[in-house]
């Protein structure tokens, strides 16, 4: 809670209380039983309607009086309906329902203790000062060296409500710091025992690592036994901690929050598109914080999103390079590099030209790449991760159709070949929330994994899927009894040979359990990468299945995870990207491009919501934005693309996929049950599902360059 907010609250409340209108004052008072002010009148009035309770009589013959019949509301106590007037307390409702709640302070003939709320009297001020004094008694006064300084709730409240002097002369309590791993730094002496972190860990993150130890002045937060916090959401305890007890280890002593410039953008390390704020100082990204978006990431982000940013400063490509005859790279000018590529691209046959977009590509650069290669006569453009024959025909075939927030409505989940905990941590948090609240059943098919909620491991191979589709599996009844069954399919299946057969089995299951209805679409695909959805929207689908084998000119636009083993050795490879990662080692020419923190780009997340990144820091060296490089190359190659500005590229995008321009709006797939696909003639293979993401912390060029992510994978993935 910011200081401004507190101040405005204080102002507002004082305005209400000083207002001459007495009705406002009544609104602020919680006096629920007007007849208590006048007990004789209440007794004199005859009972209008005795409560209709078959089993229980009101405690001690308690009666209800409705001064205004319209005020009656019905509540349920232990399942029994009770009619009570508005403003009754829960205690009173229970009394009417015949349940005796143990209590001491409340008495029906007495006023509710102290319930005349005043917020700006001298006593209230003094009481707050007293509470602040107690809080600060064991809190170190080390704000000048504390990383929370300047954005600390305790600091703000102490400024707003605390006394201006202290009377404390004794020794302060000190607590031994805990080692929570490479991400969260602890200064436990600063802890005020609010237990927000404990509740976050057990409720949202789903790990029972943190807890409260000891009592009284010996009370402290700890990990019971010496142990690291092994959660993919552990970084959120930094935001949650109101004081400086839990702070960011990589950010420790790096900057002060008032020196930072915040840029509201989105995350591209997975397909969720978490809303983030990039805090930068000068040309450096200093830290990444979550932004509130109830539909996507609520107010959490994964550790990968929060801490990969040091990868942006390492292994950067900053000059165009050409590999010479001796096999070494030489930095050259843009003019020379573009001329070489333009010359080579005219020497190969159009069908031998292949383009692959990387997992971090924005929609602008993908449409530019596709347009350029189409003009050169090739139609072999795709985005890595989508496989060679993606089902791009219907948007519902590759989107999370129920939406991330829509998953909360589901009451049964079937996870097929996906481990949402590592593939999309925020989606996993949403499933966990649903499971916690509604006790939804979760069935999982795939390699053994550690999901942080109760689930049934149904099997490891697609054969289990076949059993379910043929109603031969016990989990079928769970699915068909569910009101809103949700089937989540991992995008790792896109790369499988028997992809079509698996999808037709899943569609059968969806049909059997009525997962696809006009009001509920429970057949979901969980994508892996930020670029995938936009690529399929823009139609980046390869023309031939084995174009890599016959390629003579390969354009890698940030694609590092595409298998180049089958690429002919005489093929000419252009790598355009921001990091010297796997892709550059086979490249002949390198074009340096800007990373997502340095450019404006459109990304579509797995539920079909288009969002834009904004440049937070300037780009490095001689790098350029991706679509500009392709635009320049097209001119040198004599096939000039017709757009010169980013709005020009976007109007081209509007012609292909207009939903990409409706930013921050979820464009759900059109529901079309009448369009049935041709029956797949593929046989389901018995090959078990694999892990789509081997290492949660290192999935793309930026995270692989990050030192913090390397530390995390070394320390936290240890089995």
């Amino acid at each position, binding site marked *: 809670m910011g200081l401004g907010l507190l101040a405005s609250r204080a102002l507002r409340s004082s305005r209400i209380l000083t207002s001459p209108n007495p009705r406002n004052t009544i609104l602020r008072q919680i006096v629920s039983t007007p007849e208590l002010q006048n007990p004789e009148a209440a007794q004199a009035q005859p009972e209008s309607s005795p409560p209709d309770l078959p089993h229980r009589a009101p405690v001690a013959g308690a009666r209800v009086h409705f001064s205004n019949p319209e005020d009656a509301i019905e509540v349920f106590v232990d399942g029994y309906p009770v009619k009570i007037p508005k403003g009754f307390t829960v205690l009173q409702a229970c009394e009417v329902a015949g349940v005796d709640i143990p209590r001491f302070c409340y008495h029906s003939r007495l006023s509710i203790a102290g319930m005349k709320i005043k917020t700006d009297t001298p006593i209230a001020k003094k009481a707050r000062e007293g509470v602040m004094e107690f809080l600060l008694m064991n809190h170190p006064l080390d704000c000048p060296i504390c990383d929370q300084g300047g954005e600390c709730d305790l600091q703000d409240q102490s400024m707003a409500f605390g006394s201006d002097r202290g009377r404390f002369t004794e020794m302060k309590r000190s607590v031994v710091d805990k080692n929570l791993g490479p991400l969260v730094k602890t200064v436990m002496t600063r802890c005020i025992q609010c237990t927000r972190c404990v509740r976050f860990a057990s409720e949202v993150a789903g790990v029972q690592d943190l807890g409260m130890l000891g009592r009284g002045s010996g009370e402290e937060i700890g990990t019971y036994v010496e142990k690291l916090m092994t959660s993919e959401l552990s970084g959120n305890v930094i935001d949650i901690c109101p004081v400086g007890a839990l702070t960011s280890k990589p950010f420790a002593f790096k900057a002060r929050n008032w020196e930072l410039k915040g840029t509201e953008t989105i995350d591209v390390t997975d397909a969720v598109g978490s809303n983030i704020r990039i805090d930068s100082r*000068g*040309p*450096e990204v200093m830290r990444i914080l979550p932004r509130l978006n109830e539909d996507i990431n609520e107010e959490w982000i994964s550790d990968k999103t929060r801490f990969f940013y040091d990868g*942006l*400063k*390492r*292994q*950067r*490509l*900053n*000059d165009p*390079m050409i590999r010479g005859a*001796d*096999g*070494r*790279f030489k930095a050259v000018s843009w003019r020379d590099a573009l001329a070489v590529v333009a010359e080579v691209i005219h020497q190969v046959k159009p069908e031998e030209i292949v383009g692959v977009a990387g997992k971090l590509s924005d929609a602008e650069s993908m449409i530019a790449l596709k347009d350029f290669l189409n003009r050169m006569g090739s139609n072999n453009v795709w985005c890595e991760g989508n496989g060679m024959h993606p089902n791009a025909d219907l948007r519902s075939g590759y989107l999370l159709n129920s939406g991330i927030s829509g998953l909360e409505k589901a009451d049964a989940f079937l996870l097929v070949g996906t481990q949402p905990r590592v593939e999309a941590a925020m989606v996993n948090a949403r499933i966990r929330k649903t499971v916690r609240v509604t006790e939804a059943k979760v069935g999982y098919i795939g390699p053994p994994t550690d999901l942080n909620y109760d689930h049934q491991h149904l099997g490891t191979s697609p054969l289990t899927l076949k059993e379910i589709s043929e109603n031969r599996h016990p989990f079928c009844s769970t699915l068909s009894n569910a009101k809103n069954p949700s089937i989540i399919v991992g995008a790792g299946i896109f790369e499988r040979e028997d992809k079509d057969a698996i999808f037709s089995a899943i569609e059968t299951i969806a049909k059997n359990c009525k997962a696809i209805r006009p009001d509920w679409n429970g057949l979901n695909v969980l994508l892996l990468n930020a670029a995938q959805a936009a690529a399929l929207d823009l139609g980046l689908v390869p023309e031939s299945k084995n174009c890599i084998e016959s390629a003579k000119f390969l354009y890698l636009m940030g694609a590092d995870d595409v298998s180049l083993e089958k690429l002919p050795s005489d093929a000419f490879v252009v790598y355009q990207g921001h*990091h*010297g990662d796997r892709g*550059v*080692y086979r490249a002949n020419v390198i074009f340096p491009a800007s990373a997502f923190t340095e450019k404006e780009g459109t990304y579509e997340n797995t539920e079909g919501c288009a969002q834009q990144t904004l440049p937070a820091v300037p780009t*490095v*060296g001689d790098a350029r934005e991706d679509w500009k490089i392709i635009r320049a190359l097209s001119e040198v190659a004599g096939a000039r693309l017709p757009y010169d500005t980013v709005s020009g590229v976007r109007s081209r995008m509007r012609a292909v996929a207009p939903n990409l321009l409706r930013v921050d709006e979820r464009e759900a797939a059109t529901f079309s049950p009448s369009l049935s696909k041709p029956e797949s003639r593929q046989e389901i293979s018995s090959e078990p599902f694999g892990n789509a993401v081997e290492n949660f912390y290192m999935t793309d060029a930026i995270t692989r360059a990050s030192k913090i992510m390397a530390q995390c994978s070394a320390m936290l993935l240890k089995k």
Partner: protein
Amino acid sequence: MASVVKNALKAIRERGIGSFVRELRDEGYLYVHLLRALILLFPALECLIDKETLKCLFDGNLLQTKIHNIGATLVGVDKFGNKYYQKLGDTQYGRHRWVEYASKGRYNASQVPPEWHGWLHFITDHTGDELLMLKPKRYGAEHKENLSGEGDEYIYHSKGHSLNPGQRDWTRYRPWEPATKA
């Protein structure tokens, strides 16, 4: 040496030769010159007088200190070899503590380590040896004299300074280096 001569000439010009000689006698310089003349005449004498004393013969300040030391108590010697003297009684109060520097060729006040500084400057009556016990073990840095004017390699350069051998790289990103192998 040149400065000694220059100072002497200046003193003669200002106060006249008579008072200058009187002053010299008071300060014991005549003794020096006598000794020097003796050594020049009889080089065998040199082995009788130790090197240090010989060196101080050329430097008036050191010689004065040496003479001062006669009758004073040696309070302590620090780790650099500087000797700390005190003489109570017939010395002017406030000038009763002094140091004889270990280095006779090049000496200055920054050679006094912090533990002795307080004693020498009448801040405390605890000697350096006593104060050394209070020195923090973990982060107490070693004392270094001020080496200004001794050359670039001796003086402190900030971490971004081009003369700092471990100069920090201030570029905000590290470029990818192409593999050196072909």
